[in-house]
């Protein structure tokens, strides 16, 4: 946990310094009023100070606050996480190309089958049903704007 705190504090310090670098390009004064750079400069300085304090504390404090959960999930868990993030990223890449219906069906089918591999057929049926209901509810009734894609 101390090591984790040291790493996260160092990351915080790096973020603060980059933020301050970007904030230095903004004016602190604009005529007779404070400029757009004031608030970011205060925030960057604050984050740098807090990160330094955290780093110091993590380095010198022998009493360690335990992490709420295990750090590394089990193998099956990591596969699940990869499926969720990977499928969402793929969805973002293809939704405007393939359109709402196709890409959403693919997303649902993939997730339902990936999370419960033993029930492929029911996963496909459920995916189709849910996408149809979602189309009726959100597109036809609520008039949500969704991409039509290659199927028009």
């Amino acid at each position: 946990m101390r090591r984790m705190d040291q790493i996260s504090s160092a990351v915080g310090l790096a973020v603060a310094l980059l933020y301050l670098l970007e904030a230095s390009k903004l004016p602190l004064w604009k005529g007779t009023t404070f400029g757009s750079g004031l608030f970011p400069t205060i925030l960057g300085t604050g984050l740098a100070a807090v990160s330094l304090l955290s780093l110091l504390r993590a380095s010198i404090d022998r009493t360690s606050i335990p992490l709420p959960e295990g750090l590394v999930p089990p193998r099956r868990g990591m596969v699940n996480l990869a499926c969720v993030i990977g499928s969402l990223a793929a969805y973002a890449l293809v939704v405007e190309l393939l359109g709402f219906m196709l890409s959403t069906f693919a997303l649902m089918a993939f997730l339902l089958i990936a999370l419960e591999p033993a029930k492929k057929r029911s996963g496909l049926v459920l995916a189709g049903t849910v996408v149809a209901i979602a189309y009726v509810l959100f597109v036809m009734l609520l008039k949500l704007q969704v991409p039509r894609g290659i199927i028009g």
Partner: protein
Amino acid sequence: MDVGIGQQLLTGFAVALTPGNLFFAFLGVTLGTLIGVLPGIGPAGAIALLLPFTFGMEVTPAIILLAGVYYGGMYGGSTTSILVNIPGEVASVVTTFDGYQMARRGRAGPALAIAAIGSFVAGTFSVIALSLVAPPVALAALSFGPPEYFSLALLGLFAAAYLSGRSILKGVTMVILGLMLSAVGVDIITGGTRFTFGLIELSGGVDVVPVLMGLFGVSEIMFTLEKPLRMEVLQTRFKLRDLWPSGEDFRASAAPIGRGSVLGFMIGILPGAGAMVSSFLSYALEKKLSKHPEKFGTGAIEGVAGPESANNAATGGAMIPLLVLGVPYSVITAIMLSALITHGVPPSPTLMTRAPEFFWGVVASMYIGNAMCLILNLPLVGMWAQLLLIPYSRLAPLILLFSVIGVYGANSRVFDLWLMIMAGVLGYLLRKAGYSPAPLVLALVLGRIMENALRQSLLISQGSPLIFIERPISAALFLMSLVILAIPAMRWLSRRSAPALQGMEE
């Protein structure tokens, strides 16, 4: 009750009892109860999910819907806590201590019934208290200027940081990160862009909805899916007569329900506290006052009655800073503030006079919604218990589906989907490292208000920061913020000096 308030409430009921608003109240409490029952997404995530779908609605039914989800979620969370020993939402953690033990002894029915009845009494009490307290608070708040609003927001953020976890430094880090995100986009005062890195999508700022869905939706799903979720439901079928508590149960629960109602409402008003803190405090109070504290943790009905009442009463209290001051003190009310601003009804002390039909309509709908929740949760509890049999592997994709539809549907931008994904991964990593995302969200919503208040204050004082301590209300709020920061520092110093002192004594 003041005649003025009475007449205004009648106006509110006239608004709330229209078929459309009744429908949305019912929809809100049903969705809220559903979300509260099912583990994996809490009321905050649910409200964030629904937020984009309310943009096409009128403001009154939109807020009635979201408020219904809020307090409906408090009712629903107790069902999972009692039947499965897994809290349906964070505020129902305490109910697992004794509620589940009651269920194991075959007393699930009375536990569920007392939770529902206590929630109804407390919810109704908190709405009455809201009706009475809001007008004088609004009157007092009319004298607030930019320095008071800045100090109020600062107090709320520091309190959220303090209560978010065991390390205030981590909480403050999250607050500052949220404020940094709020600074992205066009500066309202000067018109220049900040931190957009040439991306046109960021010129309007970082959209709250994708960040919320990522931090509270996607990351929550990731957290739940990383380990196998096994749920053993103790009971799914209930006869109405099995639900009814005995006379002894009612006698034991009456005082805890009363105390929980008052405590919950007061805690709900305070910055950073909310339903979870109120339920824990209520449990501690009941255990302290009990003649048999050793029974707590083994199935004491007081351990269910008090906390469940407190977490519902807190929802009414939380509405006061939101609707009357325009400064939300919890993540859920911060999301509702986004909704109000988007609908062009920014809350402030003048909201009651500026839009009385909206304000009293929402308050009146909370009376009605509480009654609906009691009906949904008592005789229909068996239906909700059946839902617990749905595997999470089937629920998670559905939640993700609604997330992507909601996020994309709000602005029709793929960029928002990427923002949601990044926020989801960030939220997951932050929680792994012991950081709570709640202060980040609160700061993201409050950031623009705070910055404008800061710059206006410095304009008034011609650049002098002493304005924040020269005005009495601002000074008091500022001092409270410093006290909140000082408490953990003093505790840390005393922990470090204790071994040294012990050494000296030896």
